[in-house]
């Protein structure tokens, strides 16, 4: 690809180009004959006098005499021969065009695949400054015209040149002077056009680069859409793009000007030639040197002469342009092939025979392109099965080092050894089997969870490993494969199995699902998936067996609930019972439907239901209840801003409907009837009631026999619906799977009771028990696995994305796992659990864990601390957090400062140290500081007295004091305090009496914050209050813990 366009064309399509050339050459004689024939027709058949003619063919070694023929049949014969030749010519053209087009597309296919392959080989560093948009634009758009050109590259000049030559030869044969006239101006064109063309080419090149730039910027806008929304940058970017587009417009206009000027020149020159014909040809005919037939034929030929000439010129333009494009493209996709040859003996088997993998970095250094050492001469060994934590700040090089160990990045100097082999010599396939990498930038593809997990096992097609179904190779597939080969594309079977079950340690499909289950369980994601699956609806048509078994699960579930005495947490669905934990609408319909007629809104206006309600004498009762509900809603919620979280909580009222409801209530006050309202108004107010779940919403609406009446209504409604309408409803039935309700509801076949603590968890637990005992976990998990992930996993929460990425890394059972801050969205507790799970499930695994602090000491064998790319120290295990260093006594032997020397800045510094204020920001602290007094306390004076109500907090700026507690008669010293200590912090919030006295032992300077001042501030600033509240509560918990500790000893 790197030797230029024509070399590339010859390398990959020599044979086809030759076939094209042969076809082209073959077509010329026919073309020549078709040019020659009109002359014979005019001169011999029409203007001729010598009839009958003798028809004879003379070829070397063969002659045939057909016989004599009259003028009209002769004309007919010649005309049909002419028609035949025309058809042959068109046939040639058709075939050649298709062949050429196919050739172009093949080469395009090959070229695109090669570019895509190269992208996949790019070193990671390259993606730091190559945007996705740019690459997409290059592979998609910039190759397109190349494909078109490649088909034409050799055959077109040959064909058109041949045509041209044929015509010119024909003309010269007629009369050399005419021929000369026809081509007289070609030299001028041949000299002038390339000069102009060069300018166009330069412009085209610029245009390509600008379009690429546009794509790059567009890609960035999509990637940074959050920023644009949050900062409202749309105006700025609009302007920016407007400028970009303007630049492209200007170039385009220049191109048009130049291009059409070239056309203009060509056309003008072409029109000059007939001038020569009429002049020279006319003279020749008058002098009798040329027959009129010949002149007409030459003129006809000339008409044919200009298209090939034009084609040749545009081919010339095209090839210049394409060569330029090709070189720009290849430059951009150049991949250094510097990596040393891999050692083929290090096969997958070599890897499998090693019990575990030890990894060593020896003097590894990574230079960034700007010369900064991201990793600076690091040497480190991790024996097989060991776990190491790489700890450092953001720019410490921990991430790059982890990527080196994963083999993603090669050290600039130094080596990474994997089981004593240089990792750069290990074939990618082997490395890929042994190492997993989970980074903060790891990616989920926009497929299902299942496919995302299995990506780690798809590294080569498996040859009938499991399925012995031999594909009957249809003709269609054979053609498909043949075509792929011709384009240098992949000829792997369309339905080939790429999943390497062995890598996952699974013998078949079922075991594979079990393995996925294990990996998901280890990363603590299995539960989420099962829950997801349980919330899915499935149809018995798609899952006949599973739905059948879920009905069994339903029975077992009920049995378990009863046997565990938990009847009070589930209210089972019963055709003959009103369900307090289902909505009124559900109670009436007793089924599910996705037809509008049976939605909540639809039901309120259903004609049959309305009639039945009237007959049943329920209409009035329900309407009254609806009005009461609406009134309560309006009263409680109408002054809340829309979008308030309360609306979400209270599922049956929508913020936007409240003003409308208010208006409707006024109307009802006048007419006291819902029925007289407009349809939309009726629907709105009645649907409120229909959505009410009496067990949950506690409005006390139905006090009498309404529920019995509603049951009657349920039965009469179901029995009186016509068949067609009935078919739209999937009625709840104890022994049938309901395709419109989620799997979980199908198992429960009832409603979880509102108002029972932890009912949902218990129900879920029992569902799991049931699924396990019926062996249903795998099929349910599979439904969860088919959940879509969205682009880059956007449909899943970040924590789940990270768990899935880790599960993907574990599924192939690697020997080395590198987790480069890949679980940043999880809390320590969960990470701890996951790490324990990994250790248990994958005991031979070596783990590289990147972190910003040393955590989980029990899990790691070593901790490596990195700073600015250097390895600072290695510890055998993570130490516990050491206590902060003790403050040193610096007050001895110097005089005490005076209170007046304390300035505002210092006050802020002092206040910030108080735990109670640690969440406050500078302006808030400033406010506090301004409200503090600085006081001088003389030696022996008391700051606070025991048992007096506390009314202020003190901070010691300088000096010392003793803490005394009265014990019956005498006072006992229980402690001392000095600079920066805080006295009576809690007095700010509570007026409990002081539990001790504080007396100055030297002269002191203190800062005082009085309670009243503080409370004033709190009341005027809720934010400060909340921040402080948090601290109070933390203290509370701490005290609680201390209490527990004390009682322990």
């Amino acid at each position: 690809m790197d030797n230029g366009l024509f070399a590339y064309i010859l390398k990959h399509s020599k044979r086809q180009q030759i076939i094209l050339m042969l076809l082209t050459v073959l077509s010329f004689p026919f073309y020549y004959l078709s040019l020659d024939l009109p002359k014979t027709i005019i001169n011999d058949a029409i203007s001729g006098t010598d009839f009958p003619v003798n028809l004879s063919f003379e070829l070397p070694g063969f002659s045939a005499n057909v016989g004599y023929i009259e003028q009209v049949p002769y004309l007919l014969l010649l005309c049909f021969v002419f028609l035949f030749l025309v058809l042959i010519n068109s046939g040639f053209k058709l075939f050649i065009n298709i062949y050429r087009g196919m050739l172009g597309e093949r080469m395009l296919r090959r070229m695109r695949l090669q570019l895509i392959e190269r992208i996949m080989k790019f070193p990671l560093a390259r993606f730091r400054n190559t945007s996705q948009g740019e690459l997409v634009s290059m592979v998609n758009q910039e190759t397109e015209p190349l494909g078109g050109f490649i088909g034409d590259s050799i055959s077109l000049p040959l064909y058109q040149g041949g045509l041209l030559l044929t015509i010119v030869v024909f003309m010269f044969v007629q009369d050399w002077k005419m021929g000369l006239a026809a081509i007289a101006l070609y030299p001028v064109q041949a000299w002038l056009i390339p000069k102009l063309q060069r300018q166009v080419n330069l412009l085209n090149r610029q245009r390509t680069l600008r379009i690429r730039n546009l794509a790059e910027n567009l890609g960035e806008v999509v990637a940074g859409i959050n920023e644009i929304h949050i900062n409202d940058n749309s105006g700025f970017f609009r302007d920016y793009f407007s400028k970009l587009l303007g630049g492209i417009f200007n170039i385009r206009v220049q191109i048009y000007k130049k291009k059409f000027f070239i056309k203009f020149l060509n056309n003008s020159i072409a029109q000059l030639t007939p001038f020569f014909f009429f002049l020279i040809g006319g003279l020749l005919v008058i002098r009798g040197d040329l027959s009129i037939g010949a002149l007409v034929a030459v003129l006809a030929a000339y008409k044919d002469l200009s298209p090939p000439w034009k084609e040749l010129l545009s081919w010339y333009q095209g090839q210049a342009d394409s060569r330029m494009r090709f070189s720009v493209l290849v430059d951009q996709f150049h991949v250094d092939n510097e990596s040393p040859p891999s050692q083929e003996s290090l096969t997958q088997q070599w890897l499998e025979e090693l019990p575990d993998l030890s990894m060593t970095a020896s003097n590894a250094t990574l230079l960034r392109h700007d010369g900064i050492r991201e990793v600076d001469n690091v040497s480190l060994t991790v024996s097989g099965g060991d776990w190491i934590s790489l700890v450092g700040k953001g720019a410490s090089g921990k991430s790059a080092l982890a990527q080196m160990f994963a083999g993603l990045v090669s050290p600039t100097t130094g080596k990474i050894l994997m089981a004593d082999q240089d990792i750069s010599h290990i074939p990618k396939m082997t490395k890929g089997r042994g190492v997993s990498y989970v980074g903060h930038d790891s990616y989920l593809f926009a497929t299902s969870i299942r496919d995302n997990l299995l990506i780690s096992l798809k590294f080569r097609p498996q040859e009938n490993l499991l399925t012995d179904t031999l594909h009957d190779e249809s003709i269609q597939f054979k053609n498909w494969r043949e075509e792929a080969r011709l384009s240098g594309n992949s000829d792997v079977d369309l339905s080939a199995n790429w999943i390497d079950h062995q890598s996952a340690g699974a013998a078949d499909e079922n075991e594979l699902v079990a393995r996925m289950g294990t990996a998901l369980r280890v990363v603590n994601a299995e539960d989420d998936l099962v829950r997801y699956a349980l919330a899915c609806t499935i149809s018995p048509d798609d899952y006949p067996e599973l739905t059948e078994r879920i009905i069994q699960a339903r029975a077992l579930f009920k049995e378990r609930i009863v046997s565990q005495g938990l009847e009070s947490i589930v209210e089972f669905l019963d055709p003959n019972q009103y369900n307090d934990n289902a909505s009124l609408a559900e109670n009436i319909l007793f089924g599910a439907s996705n037809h509008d007629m049976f939605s909540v809104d639809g039901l309120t206006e259903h004609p049959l239901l309305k009639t039945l309600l009237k007959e049943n004498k329920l209409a009035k009762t329900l309407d009254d209840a609806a009005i009461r509900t609406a009134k309560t809603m309006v009263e409680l919620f109408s002054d809340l801003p829309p979008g308030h979280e309360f609306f979400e909580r209270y599922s049956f009222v929508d913020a936007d409907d409240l003003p409308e409801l208010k208006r409707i209530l006024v109307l009802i006050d006048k007419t006291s009837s819902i029925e007289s309202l407009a349809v939309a108004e009726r629907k709105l107010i009645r649907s409120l009631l229909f959505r009410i779940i009496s067990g949950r919403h506690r409005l006390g609406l139905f006090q009498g026999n309404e529920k019995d009446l509603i049951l009657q209504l349920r039965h009469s409604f179901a029995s009186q619906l016509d068949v067609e309408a009935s078919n739209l409803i999937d009625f709840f039935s104890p022994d049938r799977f309901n395709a419109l309700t989620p799997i979980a509801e199908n198992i429960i076949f009832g409603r979880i009771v509102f108002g029972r603590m932890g009912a949902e968890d218990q129900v879920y637990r029992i569902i799991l028990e049931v699924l396990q005992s019926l062996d249903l976990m795998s099929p349910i998990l599979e439904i969860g696995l088919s959940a879509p992930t969205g682009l880059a996993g956007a449909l899943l929460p970040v924590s789940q994305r990270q768990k899935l990425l880790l599960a993907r890394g574990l599924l192939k059972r690697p020997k080395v796992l590198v987790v480069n801050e890949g679980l940043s969205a999880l809390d320590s507790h969960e990470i701890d659990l996951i790490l324990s799970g990994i250790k248990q499930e994958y005991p031979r695994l070596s783990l590289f864990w990147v972190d910003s602090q040393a955590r989980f000491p029990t899990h790691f064998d070593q901790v490596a601390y990195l700073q600015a790319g250097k390895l600072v120290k290695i510890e055998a295990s993570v130490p516990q957090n050491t206590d902060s260093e003790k403050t040193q006594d610096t007050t001895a032997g110097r005089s005490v400062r005076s209170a007046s020397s304390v300035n505002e800045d210092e006050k802020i510094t002092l206040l910030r140290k108080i735990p109670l204020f640690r969440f406050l920001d500078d302006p808030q602290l400033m406010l506090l500081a301004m409200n503090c007094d600085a006081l001088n306390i003389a030696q022996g004076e008391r700051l606070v007295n025991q048992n007096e109500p506390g009314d202020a907090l003190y901070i010691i700026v300088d000096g010392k004091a003793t803490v005394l507690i009265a014990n019956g008669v005498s006072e006992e010293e229980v402690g001392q305090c000095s600079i920066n200590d805080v006295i009576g912090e809690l007095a700010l919030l509570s007026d409990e009496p002081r539990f001790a006295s504080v007396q100055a032992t030297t002269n002191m300077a203190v800062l005082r914050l009085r309670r009243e001042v503080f409370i004033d501030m709190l009341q005027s600033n809720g934010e400060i209050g909340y921040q402080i509240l948090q601290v109070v509560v933390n203290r509370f918990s701490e005290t609680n813990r201390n209490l527990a500790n004390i009682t322990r000893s």
Partner: protein
Amino acid sequence: MSIEDEYELLSRLELFESLDAIQLKRLIFVSQRYQIQPGEYLFKQGDTTDNVFGILDGEFSVLLNSPNGEIHIAQHGSGELVGEMAVISGEPRAASVRANCACEVIDFESELFISTVINDPRTAFNMMKLLSARLVKLDKKLEQLSAEQFRN
């Protein structure tokens, strides 16, 4: 008990004394009511739940785990709040709360509770006062216990 009765009971709480009736009603309205069996736990020490409970009926014990089993540190009855600490600290539950008899509680979800409390500075301050008073009591108990221990 309908929502009106629940409001009647909870409005007497010191914490809610300065809260508008409508705000409290709303909070109650969107919250869930639960029945608790005797001996059942509202939450256990170390749980990561963070909802707040208003006691409508019955009595609860606050218990702290210790190697010698749970120790009883407080008691709460009808019209009192429990569990408000975790809501603010975001830490796991500092103690367990167990029903002494058949009880009924209203379960405020943390976000709803916070938005109600914080949006009203006076209520926020009440909350602080409440907690501080409790903290001081606890501190005292701690003091006492350590003194006893010291003596022994």
